[in-house]
């Protein structure tokens, strides 16, 4: 085991997959000479050359679409979009093309490609650069959407995404790039797409999150353990397909749930989770499912406003405690 950052886990995996398979190429803005806006691709141009690590023009629709076309001929392009906000320029190629080509042509041609892109607010980047719009992609059959919350997950999910024959969007997170965690040496683990994981067992309440919110959820659960509150944490890991069973099984055990999401509440991912819980565990629920989500505003720049608008350790803790007291369970 080594303790490495989320960033390092992504970089190591990219490098290893490029060594393993000549069909893996990288495309993106500033990923070569500049080594990536967030330095995920540091050193890779040097190691693999321009043929395999391609700096693209600022043309998201053009180069994401080119990756789709290259994948149709059997390459395995891994595209970096600087942040998920810029995916909006490429959304036609992602939703109307990458997600449709396999089905619309009767299963003749798969599209084995990966789009890596970070979401995440909290960096004082203002409204256009702080959105969490993974929902747009998680909504679409034909796409697979993964959201790792730890370095180990980042590595095993990226590996799975590259080896999968379908278009996969790997949602990274600006707030997680520097976080550290244990990753096995000579790691070869391949995540199973479509599976959530109970990352911490507990008995009082289920806390469901993904990406930064799953990481934050684990911290909250650790802190609450000291107050004798036992929180079970479900890390969604895969936003599409969605593993409803793991969520529902946990809620059947605990009887109540809080969903923590970094996106806007209305129509958000938490809405889908809450609906799934009432469908699958209605008789087991002791309290309404509680959602913690971003305030419904374009995210402001000023730090106090930004902080107030984003879900935090405090807001998740509060939601858990209030839900437990509604149930009548003792709150520490």
């Amino acid at each position, binding site marked *: 085991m080594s303790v490495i950052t989320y960033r390092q886990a992504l970089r190591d995996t990219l490098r290893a997959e490029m060594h393993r398979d000549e069909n893996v190429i990288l495309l993106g803005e500033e990923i070569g000479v500049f080594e990536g806006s967030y330095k995920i691709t540091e050193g890779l141009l040097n190691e693999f050359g321009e043929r395999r690590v391609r700096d693209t023009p600022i043309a998201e629709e053009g180069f994401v679409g080119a990756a789709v076309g290259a994948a149709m001929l059997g390459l395995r392009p891994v595209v970096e979009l600087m942040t998920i906000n810029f995916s909006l320029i490429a959304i036609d*190629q992602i939703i109307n093309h990458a997600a449709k080509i396999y089905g619309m042509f009767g299963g003749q041609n798969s599209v084995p490609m990966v789009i890596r892109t970070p979401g995440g607010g909290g960096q004082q980047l203002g409204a256009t650069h702080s959105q969490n719009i993974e929902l747009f992609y998680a909504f679409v059959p034909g796409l697979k959407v993964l959201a790792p919350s730890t370095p180990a997950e980042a590595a095993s999910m990226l590996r799975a995404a590259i080896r999968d024959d379908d278009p996969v969007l790997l949602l990274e997170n600006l707030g997680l790039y520097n976080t550290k965690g244990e990753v096995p040496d000579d790691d070869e683990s391949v995540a199973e797409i479509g599976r959530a994981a109970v990352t911490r067992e507990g008995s009082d309440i289920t806390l469901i999150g993904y990406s930064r919110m799953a990481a934050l959820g684990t911290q909250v659960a650790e802190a609450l353990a000291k107050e004798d509150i036992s929180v079970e944490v479900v890390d969604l890991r895969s936003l599409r397909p969605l593993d409803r069973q793991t969520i529902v099984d946990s809620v059947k055990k605990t009887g109540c749930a809080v969903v923590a999401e970094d996106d806007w509440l209305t129509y958000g991912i938490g809405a889908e989770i809450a609906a799934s819980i009432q469908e699958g565990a209605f008789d087991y629920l002791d309290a309404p499912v509680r959602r913690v989500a971003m305030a419904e505003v374009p995210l402001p720049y000023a730090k106090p406003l930004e902080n107030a608008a984003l879900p935090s350790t405090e807001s998740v803790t509060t939601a858990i405690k209030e839900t437990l007291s509604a149930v009548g369970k003792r709150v520490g």
Partner: protein
Amino acid sequence: MADTAKAKGGGTAGSTGGRRRSRKDDTSSRLADETPETLLDFYRQMLLIRRFEERTGQAYTQARIGGYCHLNLGEEATVVGLMQALRESDYLFTNYRDHGYAIGKGMSAREVMAELYGRSTGVSKGWGGSMHMFDTKTRMLGGYGIVGGQLPLATGAALAVSYRGGDEVVMCQMGDGTTNIGAWHESLNIAALWNLPIVYVVINNFTGMGTTVERSSAEPDLYKRGSAFRIEGERVDGRDVLAVRDAATRLVEKARSEQRPYLLEATSYRLKGHSVVDPAKYRTQEQIEEARANDPVLAFEHRLEQAGILTEDKKQEIAESVRAEVADAADFAENSPHPEVSTLFDYTYATPVANESRRMPADPVFAE
């Protein structure tokens, strides 16, 4: 030289003498240089597309075919000429006006008609319909219904060819209206930057749905629009199958040997409305007559007759074989099975995945 106009990359071309072409049926391509077999083959292919599309329009009106349905009527010479330039191993991407291209690239009239009928024997197994003909075997990698959607894809296919050092060329067809969408600019720029073996072909039928080129393109000489990317462009008379074949072959072979993109504009007349349901009321009587007078199938027929290549017997024989092929295609489609509802979830993912939803609309999310 053919009566093509040319634009050098980065430069400006000379005057092309106005937008409307002369009605003279003369072209540079001499019939005498061709074998009668070749000429008759082209004629037959053009006639096949003509009759196929007429039959398609009919079947659509009889509600045998659904959705949107755009025909190649009037563009037969362009389609057949372009397809002659491609090797079997070359790739083709087109827009939704794709029936003729599908047949021209090697799909059978049967499979194309069956796709139009939405049957499981169709090229895309009934999943695509009119706008989405696709066949990996013949390397026609799709008709696409989103205007401009095929451009980044085709460019990426050319990237894959180039990455592997292959000698295939990608042809990317589109309409005149498509030269105004962002994907056009992004794709041509990428293709030029990365030296990709691709030929972008703009079918200029003078209109998008009803909006003319002059009202939508600030540079209406479309073959010049590659200049911003130093991509050389040519314009060719799309009524003339030989001129189209020659221009397309020249550019395809240049793209192959030089490993760089080219642009070809083929001027063409759309004989009917934008799609089968469009009565094209926005057209003036003069425009309708002009389109009829420029019917490429009739024009080629007359040329071959005048040259003594198409005899009355031969004409009958070809007409009959085309009639039979189209009738057979329609029968085949009509008698083919509809896709089974049990196959509804067969093509969502290529790699099977845990927890993939297979819910039917009224099913509960959790079935006990």
